[in-house]
């Protein structure tokens, strides 16, 4: 070996070349894909991968690629936010700590980037080799997007290089602003990459031009199985935007959980108080990010599910009540565990905050609420057992309890935030900008609610809605006779108006320096509206006016969002500059709390594997639903057992690989002095 080569091996093939190698592999794969129509042998529709089922190989490689991609796309979002927060700090020490944390997040990213690209390349090779006929069709429809994808990949790679390797050089003054701008660009490019890839996946599920009762559209897009519509039509298919939103939030939550788990492992292995304090803080931030993104994730999931049902009612039925219904019970177990693990971590952390013990008396209540909701959330409808499934197994119950779980988690956050704060700061005394912020929050919330209340979906002018009339309104233990008849939609409208009124009351109380009372009332009334009232009312609607069930769910989501928005704004203002009982004692956490962070990460990974299976599996016997049949020997929907084995295998492989990647990242330095050290008050 020459001296240059030896030097290369020692230094070059270290961290900087791996992104390039993975990147090269992916681009090679993409160009081979572009060559596919010219070289694909039409007679060969399927090939095995070295004698192994190509479906299994594609499943494993695609899921691993997606998991790494989620990490690579999710982490930069909060890395740049943390960097910006640090930049805006007036205290240089605090600014340095935030900057160091953002750098540490990005350091993890640099290692995972190469692996993502390598899996992308491998996936391309496998698809092209194993499913040439199907890939020929996909290439025919999407070939022009492949160029954009490849070019964006260049942009992603180069931006990441400059962002990561230029961190120290662009640390001050204008160059720091440029650096943050680069971080924003990195996210924009990453998001663009994701939405392009999402369009390919969702096209396979919901190709355009097949909608029932639109024969003209059908003719304009298809000739046999040949797609002749525009690329944009195929790109912006029905499920594209719902999946974009769902994946965007999912990636942030996933990235936060993985960074939290990384911090937990470093915490458990810490040798000094300083190191422990740093990783405790990092774990807290990871958990905060994961939970913040997890809170709206069920809404995005509901939106995706609703659009799946809208595109194809049988596909929706398969998902929630048919072939995939047991996997949704598993998902309920995973999601419930995520909420429990995240909350457990918060509760455990209260003792390290002076004054946190004041709020500990609420924890058993929150714990009880979460577990009762969890019980309803996972009750299967499939089993004719006990009778509980008759209520708890149906959507109104599930929708009601998830709202309550989110609200309880949010309340836990509020308590955590105010643990070491004393007194309530007058919002009026904070000046016009504070009042404006408060009014803006209530205006956005009220506008959302009023817009929906006044929309066609809840309008009596719609004959589909006005035909469902209610004479007596059934509630839990009695019927209310209101002397006349109104539509079921009107009862929903009035619920929304009622919530708007309570938003106003909460703001008025805040402006009269009774903000804590206003906030507590708002959270309580929201729980009554979204969980208690619409739980019971949802069943009545389901029974008497079935087509309106989806409006109940949308109303619940909007009610909750309006509360979260206003209560957050109130909390920011009520404790701005409030007296403190002392600094957070970072590092003073029991070891069990760190295992809850690990649990959070493991369940996120398993859940992602499971939901990936469901989303893709919903196509059942089709490559492209209703267009190209999967006629291979591996076309059948896997059994739940096979799914469990493969998804577990993928998840464990990912966890091992990501551990390895993070380990290699830490070969450079394991001293938190390089990355910021003691977080102080955080």
């Amino acid at each position, binding site marked *: 070996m020459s001296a240059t080569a030896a030097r290369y091996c020692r230094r070059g093939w270290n961290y900087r070349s791996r992104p390039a190698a993975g990147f090269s592999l992916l681009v090679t794969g993409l160009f081979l894909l572009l060559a596919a129509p010219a070289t694909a042998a039409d007679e060969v529709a399927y090939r095995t991968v070295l004698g192994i089922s190509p479906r299994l190989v594609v499943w494993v490689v695609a899921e691993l690629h997606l998991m790494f991609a989620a990490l690579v796309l999710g982490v930069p979002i909060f890395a740049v936010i943390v960097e910006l927060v640090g930049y805006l700090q007036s205290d240089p020490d605090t600014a340095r700590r935030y900057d160091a944390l953002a750098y540490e997040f990005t350091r993890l990213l640099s290692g995972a980037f190469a692996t993502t690209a390598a899996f992308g390349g491998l996936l391309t090779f496998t698809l092209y080799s194993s499913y040439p006929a199907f890939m020929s069709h996909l290439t025919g429809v999407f070939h022009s997007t492949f160029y954009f994808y490849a070019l964006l990949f260049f942009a992603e790679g180069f931006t990441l290089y400059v962002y990561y390797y230029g961190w120290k050089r662009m640390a001050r003054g204008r160059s720091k602003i440029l650096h943050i701008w680069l971080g924003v660009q990195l996210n924009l490019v990453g998001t663009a990459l994701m939405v392009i890839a999402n369009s390919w996946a969702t096209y396979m599920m919901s190709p355009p031009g097949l909608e029932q009762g639109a024969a003209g559209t059908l003719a304009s897009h298809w000739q046999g199985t040949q797609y002749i519509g525009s690329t944009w039509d195929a790109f912006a298919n029905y499920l594209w935007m719902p999946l974009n939103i769902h994946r965007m939030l999912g990636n942030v939550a996933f990235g936060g959980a993985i960074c939290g788990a990384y911090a937990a492992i470093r915490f458990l292995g810490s040798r000094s108080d300083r190191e422990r304090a740093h990783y405790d803080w990092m774990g807290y931030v990871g958990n905060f990010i994961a939970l913040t993104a997890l809170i709206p994730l069920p809404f995005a999931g509901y939106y995706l599910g609703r659009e799946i049902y809208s595109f194809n009612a049988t596909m929706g*039925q398969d998902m929630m009540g048919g072939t995939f219904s047991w996997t949704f019970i598993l998902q309920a177990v995973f999601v419930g565990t995520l909420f429990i693990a995240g909350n457990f971590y918060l509760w455990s952390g209260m003792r390290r905050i002076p004054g946190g013990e004041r709020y500990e008396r609420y924890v058993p209540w929150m714990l009880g609420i979460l577990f009762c909701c969890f019980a309803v959330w996972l009750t299967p409808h499939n089993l004719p*057992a006990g009778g509980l499934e008759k209520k708890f197994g149906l959507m109104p119950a599930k929708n009601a309890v998830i709202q309550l779980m989110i609200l309880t988690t949010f309340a836990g956050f509020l308590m955590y935030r105010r643990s070491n704060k004393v007194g309530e700061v007058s919002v009026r005394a904070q000046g016009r900008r504070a009042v404006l912020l408060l009014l803006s929050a209530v205006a956005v919330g009220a506008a959302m609610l009023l817009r929906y209340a006044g929309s066609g979906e809840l309008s009596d002018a719609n004959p589909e809605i006005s035909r469902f009339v209610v004479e007596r309104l059934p509630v839990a233990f009695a019927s209310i006779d209101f002397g006349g008849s109104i539509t079921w939609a009107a009862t929903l409208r009035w619920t929304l108006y009622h919530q708007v009124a309570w938003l106003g009351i909460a703001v008025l109380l805040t402006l009269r320096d009774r903000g804590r009372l206003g906030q507590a009332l708002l959270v309580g009334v929201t729980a009554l509206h979204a969980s208690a009232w619409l739980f019971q009312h949802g069943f009545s609607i389901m029974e008497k006016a079935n087509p309106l069930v989806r409006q109940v769910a949308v109303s619940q989501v909007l009610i909750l969002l309006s509360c979260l928005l206003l209560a957050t704004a109130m909390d920011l203002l009520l404790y701005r500059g409030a007296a403190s009982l002392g600094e957070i004692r970072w590092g003073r956490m029991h070891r*069990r709390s760190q295992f809850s962070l690990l649990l959070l990460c493991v369940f996120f990974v398993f859940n992602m594997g499971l939901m990936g299976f469901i989303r893709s599996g919903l196509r059942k016997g089709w490559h492209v639903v209703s267009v190209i049949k999967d006629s291979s020997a591996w076309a059948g929907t896997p059994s739940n057992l096979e799914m469990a084995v493969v998804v577990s295998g993928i998840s464990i492989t990912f966890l091992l690989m990501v551990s390895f990647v993070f380990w290699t990242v830490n070969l450079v330095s394991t001293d938190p002095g390089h990355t910021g050290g003691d977080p102080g008050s955080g």
Partner: protein
Amino acid sequence: MAEQGGLKSAVRGPLGRTLLFVPAVWLATRYALPLLGGWLASDDWFSMKHNLASAGLEGTLYFALALLGWSCWLAYNEQRWQQFLAPVWEFFAWKHPLRAAILVVSPLAAGAMALAAAGGGGGPDMFNAIRHPTPPDAFSHMENPFRHPTADMLEQFDAQLSSGEIVVNASTEDELVAYAGVLAAGGVSNDADRRRAFERHSTEQGRELFMVNCRPCHGTKGMGDGPMAAAQTRSPADFTGVETIATLVEGAVFWRVKEGGVKLPREGGPWESAMPRWELDLSDDEIWKIIMAEYDLAGNAPREPEKLGGH
């Protein structure tokens, strides 16, 4: 072992509470939960109607959850956790034959319970069961031709009504009588009235077919309580409420009637369905009309696909 005071504080402490909590929750999930289930399902606390093969599974799930929740309560507070563990460690350090006896008997008892649970099964594997089997693709997009009639069908309907082939009498539904009146007077009715009358007529025909073919099992009101229902292992489907036909598109119901229990897919079972394969006895048109009658009798409407957002 701990001294008298230590034992007292252990009993009053987290360990003692745990020893009270666990059996209390077990009893609640074993005995109180089925009562609640009966009330939720049929407003009857002591109803055993729904306690079928998998009864008790939900109780087991809830019991496991309660234990998990209790563990969280013990573990999030360091002080409580140490109080809980202290007597446990003391027990392990206890130099007494009773310790050895407990350590031997506990795993044996757990093993015996596991053995009993493994050998005591024999029922169908309920964990594979799903609510709604997937209809073959050809069925899932089908529309009921009598709910969405073509212009030819409507014209033929007018002709039959005018010629008296369709008899309208006092017992016929109002919509049909009114429409026949307009038609007999030579008036031109609007299309909505015409479609409503046609749908009503088809439903009436379906109702007659339902009473002859379906009522014996599914009952006069479609509640799954016909005279032959009691003879079956699994009750015939109850069309009222929100769980059966209300949640299905009509194509899926058509498939279930046409191909019956014998053509249900193997996956997702056990179905235990005695539904006959009606394609051997009824025409497609007759089945569609029966389906209209089923929804009508049960006071339900078929599930319609939602409108696609943003498209």
